[in-house]
């Protein structure tokens, strides 16, 4: 569905040029859950932003269903580390922002927004303002916002990275349920190896200076998965493999 | 496509281009002034007495600066003395009272409402009272510019010392710091950006105070000179002095701006990036 060939990204800095990505090649199938893992500075966020069309590449190309992909599109929904809710809009108004921007029928999507908010556990908070919600609830609202207009691909840039462990785990489970139900293509950036193994079909392992792909690991754990899978040897093996690739001592 | 757009923007936003255009705007404005002087535009006659051509003003300005240097410096000196004396006294009083009000909740409760009322009032309206009390001389100008500097410094000192990050205070307490240490090492330094903002506004207001007092009644000073030329209908002369005071104001403004950058080097002012490309 998405193919990346010879992709490089350079950033000019005060002391020369920073090679954020060098010669990245990757094929992404439709309907899969793919994670990008690596330490900060490995270019995983940069790569996601290039795929999303928010950053321009320096060399190489990205194709989406055979077409050159270099701009934001309706088919690609993005979610960031911060919830990025507009403080002057209520929760449901925030969720309906894409509907307004894309010029969709507001009345029809209003109902859908309510359903999704209900699904992610924000029932009763539709008319609240963002500052009245906790960090985890704000991220749930942000997740609803990307789901409401039903993009084919979800680009999630460390979406739960700033949340506490318990909230993060709960949201990961919810994300997995949503993925199972919709079979959207999900590209998920994280620095948490366990999280990546738990969620993904495949894991793209990246290292910094210059940012490049070391290996694409097939997770091969059975689905549907529950928390219990984290206690299996197969899970531990995958985590260990990714750790080794990243050169993390333990 | 991206490359083409980049280069077009690049040319327009080149620093040389930018400054050339800035100079052209100035030249254009002076040309417009020259053209408008003595002309009838949309049925409105702009008399040369009201708007003398730029060349006349430039000539008078030249005479004032080159031939009457001594006279001009004398006036400038008086005005500068008024501004700086008032600014210094006002800053000291504002800072002192601000510290006192923060230290003593009782005094703060008693007089804070009146400070808010006096602060929201335009200080210029009491200039005639000040002149009646302190005379036409330099004293009334210094008092007026003191009042100008006083309130911004006072308010900003209080706000700066009040809005201190609680976590920093707790951190200092965890080191078992004394009240004095907390104040000197944390509270006061973290209030400094706000206080210096008050000082910057204070200088502007001190200048306004001195000028308005000179406008109303004075024997010497640049503001008084403007009024005198106005009454004598020496309009090009009046324009020249306005140009000089404006330049003085701009110089003082950049002086405090520069001081601010040196002293409050950790200040974050996101607006600065608006002027860069």
């Amino acid at each position: 569905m998405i193919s990346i060939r010879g992709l490089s990204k350079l950033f000019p800095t005060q002391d020369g040029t920073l090679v954020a990505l060098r010669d990245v090649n990757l094929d992404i199938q439709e309907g899969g859950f793919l994670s990008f893992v690596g330490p900060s500075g490995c270019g995983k966020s940069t790569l996601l932003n290039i795929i999303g069309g928010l950053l321009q590449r320096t060399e190489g190309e990205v194709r989406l269903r055979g077409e050159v992909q270099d701009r934001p599109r309706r088919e690609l929904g993005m979610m960031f580390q911060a919830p990025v809710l507009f403080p002057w809009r209520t929760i449901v108004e925030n969720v309906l922002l894409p509907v307004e921007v894309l010029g969709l029928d507001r009345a029809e999507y209003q109902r859908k927004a309510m359903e999704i908010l209900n699904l992610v556990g924000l029932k009763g908070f539709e008319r609240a303002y963002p500052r009245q919600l906790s960090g985890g609830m704000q991220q749930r609202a942000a997740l609803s916002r990307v789901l409401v207009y039903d993009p084919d691909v979800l680009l999630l840039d460390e979406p739960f990275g700033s949340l506490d462990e318990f909230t993060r785990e709960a949201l990961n489970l919810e994300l997995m349920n949503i993925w199972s139900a919709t079979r959207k293509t999900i590209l998920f950036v994280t620095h948490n190896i366990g999280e990546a193994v738990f969620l993904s079909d495949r894991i793209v392992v990246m290292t910094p200076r210059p940012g490049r792909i070391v290996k694409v690991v097939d997770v091969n754990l059975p689905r549907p998965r529950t928390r219990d899978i984290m206690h299996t040897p197969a899970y531990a093996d995958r985590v260990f493999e990714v750790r080794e690739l990243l050169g993390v001592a333990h | 496509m991206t490359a083409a757009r980049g280069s077009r923007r690049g040319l327009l936003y080149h620093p040389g281009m930018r400054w050339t255009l800035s100079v052209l705007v100035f030249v254009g404005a002076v040309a417009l002034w020259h053209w408008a002087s003595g002309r009838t535009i949309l049925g409105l006659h702009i008399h040369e007495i009201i708007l003398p051509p730029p060349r006349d003003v430039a000539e008078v300005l030249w005479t004032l600066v080159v031939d009457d240097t001594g006279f001009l410096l004398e006036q400038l000196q008086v005005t500068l003395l008024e501004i700086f004396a008032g600014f210094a006294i006002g800053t000291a009083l504002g800072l002192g009272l601000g510290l006192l009000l923060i230290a003593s909740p009782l005094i703060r409760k008693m007089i804070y409402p009146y400070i808010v009322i006096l602060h929201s009032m335009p200080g210029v309206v009491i200039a005639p009272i000040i002149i009646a009390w302190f005379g036409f001389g330099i004293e009334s100008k210094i008092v007026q510019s003191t009042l100008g500097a006083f309130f911004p410094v006072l308010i900003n000192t209080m706000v700066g010392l009040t809005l201190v990050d609680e976590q920093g205070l707790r951190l200092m307490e965890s080191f078992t710091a004394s009240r004095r240490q907390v104040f000197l090492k944390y509270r006061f330094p973290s209030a400094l950006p706000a206080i210096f903002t008050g000082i910057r506004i204070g200088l502007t207001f001190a200048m306004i105070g001195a000028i308005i007092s000179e406008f109303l009644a004075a024997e010497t000073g640049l503001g008084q000179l403007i009024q005198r030329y106005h009454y004598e209908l020496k309009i090009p002369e009046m324009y020249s002095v306005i140009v000089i005071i404006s330049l003085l104001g701009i110089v003082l403004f950049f002086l405090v701006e520069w001081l601010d950058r040196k002293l409050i080097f950790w200040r974050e002012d996101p607006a600065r990036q608006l002027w860069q490309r």
Partner: protein
Amino acid sequence: MGDFLPPLLFLAGGLIAWQLIAPTGWLVNPLLLPTPGAIAKAGWELLGAAYLGENFVRTVYVIAVGFVIAVLAGLVLGTLMAVVPLLRLVMYPYIIAFQALPKIVLVPLFIVLFGFGAAAKIVTAAAIAFFPVFMNTMVGLSLVDADQRRLMESLTASRWQVFTKLQVPSALPLIFAGVKVSATYAMTGALAAELIAGTDIGLGRLISTFSFALQMDFVFIIVIVIAVMAYLLFTGMERLGEKVVFWGEDQERGGL
């Protein structure tokens, strides 16, 4: 109630001390510092005078018109500078020079250009009040949160959509902070121009007339009227600000 007591006691004590000390001429010539009683009497007299109303109305009119012109001009030009960066960069030296300029020196110039009537005072009020709205509009519309902008881009928002749905609402707190300062500045400008012109009508004019006649009790009562006006304007703008910027962001951020 406990919060009102100390300031009221302070006021009462101050007024009594003033009333007792002023006539003795111990600190200031009684001619120059009228007693509270004399000021109250002057206030009563002034209330009966027909000319108070017309002077008051004129000053309010000058402030209001100057303020409206300043806000409209500030919004339009500030938006223009935010939307067209090249214009902003080219005009940079003049914007900074205008900011640095003590606008009060322009009053004699405005009087020469626009005469001794209301026009010169309105122009002064507008010239002084213009900058805070202008600057805060420009800064507010330009410095939008990078993540919020990225979100709008990822939703394929048009420039117009980014402007209306993101830039304008996120600039509102700062713009309103500017409007608030402008209201106070318009008042300063109007009164300063009336004082300096010293002719025509208006509360500023009344102050200069009474002070030249050394009727300080009348000067004081008019100053008190102005203080009340200023306080009402200030608190009114605060209230309005809480309504407009209902999501309660810090309005003082970078205020000028």
